[in-house]
């Protein structure tokens, strides 16, 4: 095993990630601050045409309630459209396999999942959805759900940065800009690179091949490259194929794998710098970035270590079950860590087959709130909630009414922030505990014992965390899971978005207090340390009990040779 090789690859990963996200982040800031940038001459006219065409007055500024209502309406229609597409796909074009209409509850679950940027897949792409639905439905929502996340983040930034204001921007303007200047250009570039690596992109029928043994094998195809690009960049993760990025047509080469991992974190990491730039505090952005990187690397290290540790039961140093031989341990673990921190549901290995500790880390990454880079936009506004709580507790400890970047953090902000932090956690625990004792919940289970517990816990963690990756081993395409998980996804998404916008709406009205030596600084090592502590303690306090009798217990049992 070549540890040095793995380390160098990680280094290369970071060397590319950090400068790229810095450059992109600053560019995004220009886009939202209305400054001139190089894409404006190319797309500016098209953008204005869109506004005129749809009758949007970008000058109209919205308060937080109007912004939220517009967002919810937009997402609701996205949901209706997705459901409609799935229910009528047999009448729609580009359905070479003549796939029938999707079952209603599955269609609802899938629609909710793509609208909430979760991309949980209770279905298998190649056997359920036509090319048309994949393109006009899933791919479109991949863009729009990501853009929704970015819009919320930008609205929040305005709330923090504006002094004595009322409005937090125009939702339609923010969504359009996000798609046009951020998601589309990057996706186009990335899908061309993927094409060059051999990712398929075609409207042809599935190909039937005859293997050497003389057996028939159906090889699914489709317009894949264009969808994989946004699936990775928009922290969506909904694979074109059931096996997602473990399938060679989604992820054919080491280079494609490397770039796909990079693209998972690219936009979330860039947005940290956008945040810093727009708030006029680059040092604060670096502090947040440092916190994210630290937790990410710590999780990666534990995960990697547990995978390469000698296994007594199987008498082996490395377990390759459930992993692509093409990628090996490091790339599988890097992927699982990156996707779970970043709320990207894509997989290139089977998380269920990872060591119990790796599985625990993957789960904990999501349970921390998808804030370590996190979903596009969502990661940062989620992190903001933890910043608010950190600022509040540590602000009290320096004897001042807590302030964040000059804005006072008072009861209203605390109320919404704590609600947004707790809702997804409560959803995870509540739905999992219902599932583990009910007949409907247990009948879908493949494994018993702690592994079974992990399977259920992971499913709801993934749903409420809007991650979308699956632990596998649990058949969730049942009415029970389709309904409960849809609710969990909605809570995980809008239970955070609405509070964040409410906080933005409250902050925007406040004056900005200048910093003094008595003010708690949010851009130094001390603050980074506290933020990490709050994130880990809140996460740990909530999930320590269940994780210890789930994956941790499984780890202990496996050590003594008991498996399930």
């Amino acid at each position, binding site marked *: 095993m070549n540890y040095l090789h793995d380390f160098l690859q990680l280094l290369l990963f970071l060397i590319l990630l950090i400068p790229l996200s810095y450059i992109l982040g600053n560019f995004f800031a220009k886009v939202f601050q209305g400054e001139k940038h190089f894409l404006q001459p190319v797309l500016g006219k098209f953008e204005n045409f869109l506004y005129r065409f749809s009758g949007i007055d970008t000058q109209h500024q919205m308060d937080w309630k109007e912004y939220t209502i517009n967002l919810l309406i937009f997402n609701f229609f996205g949901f209706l459209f997705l459901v409609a597409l799935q229910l009528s796909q047999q009448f729609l074009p580009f359905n070479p396999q003549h796939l029938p209409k999707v079952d209603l509850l599955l269609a609802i679950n899938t629609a909710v999942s793509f609208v909430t940027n979760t991309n949980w897949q209770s279905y298998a792409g190649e056997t359920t959805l036509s090319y048309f639905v994949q393109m006009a439905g899933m791919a479109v929502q991949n863009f729009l759900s990501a853009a929704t996340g970015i819009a919320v983040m930008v609205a929040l930034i305005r709330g923090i940065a504006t*002094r004595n204001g009322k409005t937090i921007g125009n939702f339609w303007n923010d969504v359009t800009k996000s798609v046009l200047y951020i998601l589309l250009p990057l996706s186009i570039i990335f899908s061309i690179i993927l094409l060059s690596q051999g990712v398929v992109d075609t409207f042809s029928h599935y190909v039937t091949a005859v293997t050497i043994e003389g057996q028939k094998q159906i090889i699914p195809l489709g317009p894949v490259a264009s969808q994989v690009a946004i699936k990775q960049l928009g922290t969506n993760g909904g694979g074109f194929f059931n096996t997602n990025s473990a399938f060679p047509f989604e992820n054919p080469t080491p280079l494609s794998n490397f770039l796909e991992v990079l693209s998972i974190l690219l936009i979330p990491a860039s947005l940290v710098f956008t945040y810093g730039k727009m708030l006029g505090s680059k040092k604060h952005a670096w502090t947040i970035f440092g916190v994210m990187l630290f937790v990410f690397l710590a999780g990666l290290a534990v995960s990697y270590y547990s995978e390469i540790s000698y296994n007594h039961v199987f008498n082996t140093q490395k377990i390759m079950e459930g992993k692509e031989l093409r990628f090996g341990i490091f790339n599988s673990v890097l992927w699982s860590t990156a996707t779970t921190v970043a709320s990207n549901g894509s997989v290139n290995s089977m998380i269920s087959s990872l060591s119990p500790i790796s599985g625990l880390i993957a789960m904990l990454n999501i349970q921390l709130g998808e804030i370590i880079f996190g979903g596009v936009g969502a990661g940062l506004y989620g992190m903001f909630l933890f910043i608010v*709580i950190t600022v*509040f*507790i*540590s*602000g*009290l*400890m*320096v*004897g*001042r*009414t807590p302030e964040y970047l*000059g804005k006072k*953090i008072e*009861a209203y902000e*605390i*109320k919404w922030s*704590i*609600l947004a932090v*707790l809702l997804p*956690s*409560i959803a995870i*625990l*509540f739905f*999992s*505990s*219902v599932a*583990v*004792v009910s007949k409907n919940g*247990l009948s879908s289970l493949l494994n*018993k*014992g702690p592994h*079974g*517990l992990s399977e259920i816990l992971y499913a709801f963690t993934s749903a409420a965390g809007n991650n979308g990756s699956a632990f596998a081993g649990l058949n969730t395409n049942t009415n029970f899971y389709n309904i409960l998980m849809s609710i969990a996804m909605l809570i995980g998404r809008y239970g955070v978005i609405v509070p964040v916008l409410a906080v933005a709406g409250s902050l925007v009205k406040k*004056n*900005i*207090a*200048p910093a*003094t*030596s*008595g*003010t*708690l*600084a949010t851009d*130094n090592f*001390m603050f980074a340390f506290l933020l990490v502590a709050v994130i880990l*303690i809140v996460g740990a*306090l*909530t999930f*320590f*009990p*269940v994780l*210890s*009798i*789930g994956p*941790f*217990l499984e780890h202990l*049992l496996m*050590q003594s040779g*008991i498996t399930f």
Partner: protein
Amino acid sequence: METKKNSKALFDKKIISKAIIDSFIKLNPLSLIKNPVIFIVGIGAALTTLIFFTDLSEGNFSAFNLQIMLWLWFTVLFANFAEAVAEGRGKAQSENLRKSRTNTIARKKTDAGEVKVSAIELRIGDVVICETGDLIPADGEVIEGIASVDESAITGESAPVIRESGGDRSAVTGGTRVLSDNILIKVTSNPGETYIDKMIALVENAKRKKTPNEIALSILLSGLSIVFIVVVVSLKFFFNYYHITLSQDVSSVSIPVLTSLLVCLIPTTIGGLLSAIGISGMDRLLQHNVIAMSGRAVEAAGDIDVLLLDKTGTITLGNRMATEFIPAPGISEKYLADAAQLASLADETPEGRSIVVLAKDMFGIRERNIHELDAHFVPFSAQTQMSGVDLPATEKSHTKIIRKGSLEAIKRYISEGTKIDPNSQGNFMFTQMVGVDIALEGGTPLIVVENKNILGVIQLKDVVKGGINERFAQLRKMGIRTVMITGDNKLTATAIAAEAGVDDFISEAKPEDKLKRIRDEQSSGKMVGMIGDGTNDAPALAQADVGIAMNSGTQAAREAGNMIDLDSNPTKLIEVVEIGKQLLMTRGALTTFSIANDVSKYFAIIPAIAMSLFSTNGFNGPLSVLNIMRLSSPQSAILSAVIFNALIIIFLVPLALKGIKYRPESAINLLKRNILIYGVGGLIVPFIGIKIIDLILTFLKLV
């Protein structure tokens, strides 16, 4: 600080015994529900009690459940006790105030004449007469007359103060006694609404409203409590999963055990002490002789960014003092001092007294008997702008006519009638130059002439209060900028500002300037504190986020401010700021401590309830590796955690009452220290504490 005079021993026997009784009275659910965290503990305790007695009625006595039940009740009682002690101390404090509110008979003036009424019948606008020896029946304003008043009942200060109509010293407080003369007082508050009444309500917790930060913190604590309820309830289901699917024995996860886990996890430490912290903050304020109109104002004091102070009486002693003799060429300094002293012997103004004292200090020139000298004193008159002395000729010297006055006045005086002789001309130029220098340094020149010959210049200076520089340095460390307001010209103001070490000043200030400055600072997002006493300060006091009015000030000023300093000591604000900051810091530190504690409690309770899973012998299952404290048994582990959780409340009561230590230093240093003590300490202490309790329980065979 001498203002600590009202403080008392932390635990008074009387207060404690009353508090113990109150702890039980506060078990009333209606009163418990005001504190959600402790209310949850109360429900848990009641539930455990119910289970214990149900079991008992079925013939199953569980000593373990009994102990859990008792300690859960203790947890509630301890939290009640903390609040009761704080209230008791507040009550004791307010008793001093209440004494002054005795039912006095007032002499109300009506159209028909004088009527004797009880003080509680007085209403706003009534006019009462007070004579020597009378208690002033209510808060009010002197509308006629002048009197010396003994305010020791409320300030503890025995020296009488002067209260007179008009001007800045017209306000009187109910319960104080007139020592001489008689005055007419217009009543300005209804009974039960006086400042004293408000303060009593605040320290007695009866009408204490939660402050904004306290509300925010309560929300955070409630949120955490809710999530822990979900954690604990869901845990029961996760255990049942093992029972359903693999028939594991999960009977260890009983309701009393889960309640214990819940109570240990929810922030009971801070929850139990929160209101004690708030009450004792008001109590500490009162110990410093400051009356606050609301707890909100005290908290706001901790947030002050800019402090506006009047120069006179705050930064300087209030009067100009002689600090130096600068003789003209050919004149000795001692001669000048001697002449200056002679000219000032009968001058009873503070300035005159200071010249006499300075001459004595510098040259040992004693005060001479005025009558022996047979001198004729010329008092200061508005006409001449000079004062001085005429000494008859003696065998030693000829007639001396000494005058002192401002440059302008002396110039007029010596050029009167005659031309200035060439000798004096040179000296006059000299004095002019010296005068400019003095003004540059913030002083005032006073010229001394003898027989129209210029002897030299006395430098009069505003003397900056001793130690004020350090106090401003402290404020700067806290992150508070000080702004001096003065009517002086810019030159003088600059010099005094530099000497006192204020960060900024407004010279030649008019009342509107104060108001404008406050508004400007506020619009740039700053919190402004202001100290004032005059009626013209009232708008500024009202505009400021924290306005402290001097008790000696006018009624208008006292009504405009949100705090009143009974000692009328302007630097008191520093203490008020400290108390405000202490309040927040104590809450923050105990919250951190409370949450950090949870880590160790997990390591005590989770292995205790989960170690039976997949065990071969019934207790030492795989998860016993989490029992890093090596606690002797599951029961002992759970009980130790519950006991620690209850006892820590009692241990921290003194801290909650006194507040954690505040040192004026930068935020980052404060944070570092508090994180180290309450964060890291909060992680480690319970590990040790729980282990010790476990050893004791095992030793006593209680489990």
